[in-house]
Every structure is written in structure tokens, then in C-alpha cells.
């Protein structure tokens, strides 16, 4: 299965991993009761997908169409931040292996702190992010 969809809850974000369409997305809020139980399988799945692409030597597939990673978070707590960084280190390894990737970081236009969090992650993992300000939901 190269496709995963995790529905959002009050405490956990919606997560989509779609390897065939080279797309990953995480959105809404993240403060899981058991942060390891929530994030480990997602990080593991992403690692398997990216490692498989590297091993099968199919990185060229992304030359024309990059693997897109999107983050549309409203809020995440400090433990989630640690796991988002772990997730980004998988992306960093993928990029370093030669994959053409794109990271899109969305934030509400009245939430500069969320933009700054994205800038920090970009700095921590040394990957350029694209930033998009969006209007808050009512």
C-alpha cells in the first residue's frame, strides 16, 4: 500500500501519503495523547516509500514532477514539533539522495508565529520551503 489517509480528530492532524501521485500532506491541529503512537507509523511509512524509490533507482521520475510535501497546520504542540522535525529529516535524506522535492508550508495570514515555525524547520533541516499565507477558517 503506497497510500495512507488518516482522518483528523480533535487532537490529531489529517495525514495523506500518496506515493503514486508523489504527495504528502499534514493539516489541522496536532497534540496527540500518545505522540509516539501517532507519529512513528507515519514516519516509518514515509521512510519505506522514500527508501524504496532510492533503492529502485526511480528518482528520475521526479525530475519533471517533484514529490510535494505540504504542511497546513493550525497548531502543533512541542512534542509534535519534535516529530515533524523527524519527518522532515526523512525528507532531507530523500532530497540528499537526489530526489526533486518541494515543501509547501501554509499558515493563516494572522499567524506569523506559524510562519516563523516553518522558517525554523526550513533552517533546521536546510531545505528551502515555499510559504503561503491563507485566510483563517471561520
Amino acid at each position, binding site marked *: 500500500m503506497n497510500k495512507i489517509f488518516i482522518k483528523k480528530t*480533535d487532537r490529531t492532524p489529517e495525514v495523506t501519503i500518496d506515493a503514486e501521485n508523489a504527495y504528502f500532506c499534514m493539516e489541522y491541529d496536532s*497534540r*496527540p*495523547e*500518545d*505522540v*509516539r503512537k501517532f507519529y512513528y507509523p507515519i514516519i516509518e511509512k514515509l521512510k519505506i516509500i522514500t527508501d524504496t524509490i532510492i533503492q529502485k533507482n526511480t528518482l528520475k521520475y521526479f525530475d519533471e514532477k517533484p514529490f510535494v510535501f505540504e504542511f497546513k497546520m493550525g*497548531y502543533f*504542540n*512541542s*512534542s509534535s*514539533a*519534535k*516529530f515533524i*522535525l523527524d519527518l522532515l529529516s526523512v525528507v532531507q535524506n530523500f532530497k540528499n539522495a537526489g530526489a526533486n522535492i518541494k515543501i509547501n508550508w501554509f499558515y*493563516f495570514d*494572522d*499567524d*506569523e*508565529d506559524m510562519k516563523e515555525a516553518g522558517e*525554523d524547520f526550513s*533552517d*533546521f533541516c536546510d531545505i528551502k520551503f515555499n510559504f503561503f499565507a491563507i485566510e*483563517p477558517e471561520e
Partner: protein
Amino acid sequence: MKKKSEKISFSYFGYLNIEILENILVDTREYLKVNFKDNKVSKRIYVVVVEALENIIKHNNVSVLEQNKIKFEINVLENSCKLLFANKIYCNEENNIKNILTQIQNKSKHEIKELYKITIQKAKISDKGGAGLGFLEIAKVVNKIDYKFDNINSNTCEFILEIEIARNS
């Protein structure tokens, strides 16, 4: 004694566990939505409330927690909001908390960011789900952190955390 211009706008006194935390956060979100037009300030208050209350649940000794009632207040002033959190801890935990907060207090935003960068890269998730980033996450968004310990008896004391967030930042 509250200063004349200071009013308690939101407060909770009672036990704290995961279920109660959920209810407090729902009420806090509702309170912030109704009372704060500035989403930036209300988000910062929410960040502090989540981290401070999750810290209490994750880091306190269970046997103390069983008989531990916490206090949490949001006080609105003209130019800032003051948040207060008080919970009972064992006295031997005092130095550990002091060491963490001493590193954070009076640091510039740039210094906090650098410390956060080092800490998050080294962080290990504890069995209770903490990454050791809670106070730093708070320090990133607030203007002032104060704390004190009031002795209750030879074994336990009350840890009081006071946070100030500017309303016009």
C-alpha cells in the same frame, strides 16, 4: 491581591488529568474566540495554556497529582495578559525546574531560538510523551516568564508559573 486594573477573566481550580485538560482547552478556545479580536494574541495564549498544562500532567509525580489541585488563571490587563499556573510538586523537583527556567529567563528571542534549535535536535521523547521543549515553546511566544516555589511542608511545595504576553505586539 489583584491590582485595580487587573481582572481575572478565566480561571480553573481543581484536579487535572487528560479528560479534564480536554474540557479546559475547549473552554479556553471558546473564551479566546469570544474575547480576543487579535488572533495572534489568542493563539499565543492557547500555546502557553496547552504547554503549561501538558507539562503539569507529563512531569508531575503521580502520587502527588492524585491529591493535587491545580490553579490556572488568565488575567487581562490593558496592554498585556498574565497567565498563572500553580501546582504541587515534590521539593526535590525544584532544582530541575529552576535549572530549565534559569536558562530561559531573560534571554533574547534570538537566544531562545538558538536554544530551541539545539534542544529539538537532541530531544528524546519521554515515556510520558514529553520532548523537554515545553518551557522553550512558551518562551518563544511570551514577553516575560516568572516563577516561584512556596513551601507547603518539608516534602512538597507549590510551583507557581507566571507568564506575560503583550496584547499589542
